[in-house]
């Protein structure tokens, strides 16, 4: 493996920076079940990092550890060079880590616009009274936030459904709105839990394009979990492979593809 202490350059010429997030010896147990066993890896500024593995490998658990939904029994999470204390999910979000969910968690009763607007909540600083009466700082703030949200709506090509209640949208569009809400928070790190699960080929292509553009245009660091091997290999700069809660591979897509342990995990191995 290459020495990457000072970052590296991807095959397509993008410059990847230093370590943004580092997971050190993470172990997560649910009662007697070990979901994650002593896993370490890092995520670097500006890269697209994938976590892959067969069903039940502990990928989603890992994402939940990063976003503060689960708290590991052992190990440390380092973010921007500082050890992170045990944090509630909303505190993690306020630190600049946004996420989407495997089975979509949107505010079904609200419009697309309002949903994406909730991503801006932490950018609103004016007082309750100002906001309710549309006074002073509140008006400027709301205008700024709306502009940002409109930018995201344009970017994701969902102008035509801005005012539609999310509950009425088809699955693929919901996924896109959820991505929009995460983007609205302008996170330092974007976590995507199976962004392409349940999509058809065309929707997958759209989503891949959005993910690449988010990384390219906004320079956003992305960590994603995905089942579809083809997609992962095309999208990501580096890949962590998990199986039964253990890390069995870590490296560029090419390195991972030729890793015997990974091949065994995915294709099965005979035990004779």
């Amino acid at each position, binding site marked *: 493996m290459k020495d990457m202490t000072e970052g590296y350059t991807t095959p397509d010429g993008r410059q990847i920076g230093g370590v943004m997030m580092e997971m050190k010896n993470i172990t997560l147990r649910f009662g007697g079940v070990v979901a994650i066993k002593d896993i370490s890896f890092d995520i670097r500024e500006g890269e697209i990092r994938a976590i892959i593995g067969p069903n039940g490998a502990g990928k989603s658990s890992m994402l939940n550890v990063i976003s503060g*939904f689960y708290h590991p029994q052992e190990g440390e999470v380092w973010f921007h060079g500082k050890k992170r204390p045990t944090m509630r*999910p*909303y*505190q993690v979000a306020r630190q600049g880590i946004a996420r989407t*969910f495997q089975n979509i968690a*949107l505010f079904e*009763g609200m419009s697309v616009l309002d949903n994406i607007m*909730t991503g801006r*909540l932490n950018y609103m600083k004016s007082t309750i009274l100002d906001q309710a009466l549309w006074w002073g700082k509140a008006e400027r703030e709301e205008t700024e936030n709306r502009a940002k949200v409109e930018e995201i709506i344009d970017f994701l090509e969902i102008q035509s459904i801005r005012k539609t209640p999310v509950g009425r949208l088809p699955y693929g569009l919901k996924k896109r709105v959820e991505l929009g809400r995460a983007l609205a928070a302008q996170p330092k790190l974007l976590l995507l839990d199976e962004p392409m699960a349940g999509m058809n080929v065309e929707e997958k292509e759209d989503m891949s394009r959005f993910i690449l553009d988010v990384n390219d245009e906004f320079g956003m660091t992305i960590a994603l979990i995905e089942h579809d091997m083809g997609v992962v290999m095309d999208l990501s700069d580096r890949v962590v492979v998990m199986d039964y809660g253990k890390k069995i591979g870590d490296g560029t897509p090419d390195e991972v593809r030729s890793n015997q342990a990974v091949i065994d995990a995915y294709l099965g191995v005979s035990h004779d």
Partner: protein
Amino acid sequence: MPDQLLFAMEVALNGLMAGVMYALVALGFVLIFKASGIFNYAQGVMALFAAMTVVGIQKGQVPFAHLINAIFGTHIHYFGWNVPALGAILLTVIVMGLFAWVVNKLVLKHLVNQEPIILFMATIGLAYFLEGVADLMWGADIKKLDVGLPQGINGYIDETTFNLFGYGFFIDNLDITASVIAAILVTALVLFSQYTKQGRALRAVADDHQAALSVGISLNFIWVLVWTIAGCVALVAGMMWGAKSGVQFSLSLIALKALPVLMLGGFTSIPGAIVGGLIIGVGEQLFEFAIGAPYLGGATQNWFAYVLALLFLVFRPQGLFGEKIIERV
């Protein structure tokens, strides 16, 4: 105009005013139900507790006087000062905020993700606990609430209508005040929930807890906020009802009157609570006037609202404004 019609109009008008009072109580339920899916059985007791606290603070009563006296053998009951009405109300708002914080800390926080029925049971427990605390804190005697709310028949309306129709309408000043306050309260709540950051966060929490957490909303903060607001609504309701019929334990039963209002208006709609309250207020007065008193021997107000609610349950279970329940298969 024939006398009967004028009389009916007066009855309907008084019904509207009574409806506002029902709506005030229902509002507190809607707020908490919307934000956390909890049917807060304690809402009525909260109204009682708030009203008692206002009176207690105003009169300079020593809280838990009986308890203190029993333990230390003292005989203190009053501090010997009087707090102005507005001051007492503001202090009560703070007390309701503290109450919200304690409820969240001791009860709700530990019941996250539990079944609605468990949360409902918890609020029943809370209701009787709070009733006991209220008793211990301020004493069980019937209190007179006097915060300077205008009372008695409104002379101006009486006179004007008499000059116009030759028949004077009797409308209570307290009812008019209640309507104005309710209107202000509802406007404030709607502005809050539609246009403020906290309001948006509240709607988000109401919709999906996980998603709310992921955009940086603290569930605990929102719940304390919602319970505080519901406490303030209970305070207003308690004061209005208390001014009308004295601050006493039967006040907590107004919660039962809010149930049919909620079934009519829908459990999740603020306008629904208002419209539902008005319909029931007017409906029960007119029904009594037109059918109840002449044909059924009167006192139909006691059950009319519930029958109406039952009909709604059969034909429109989500209420007038509630979210429609559609299960896709």
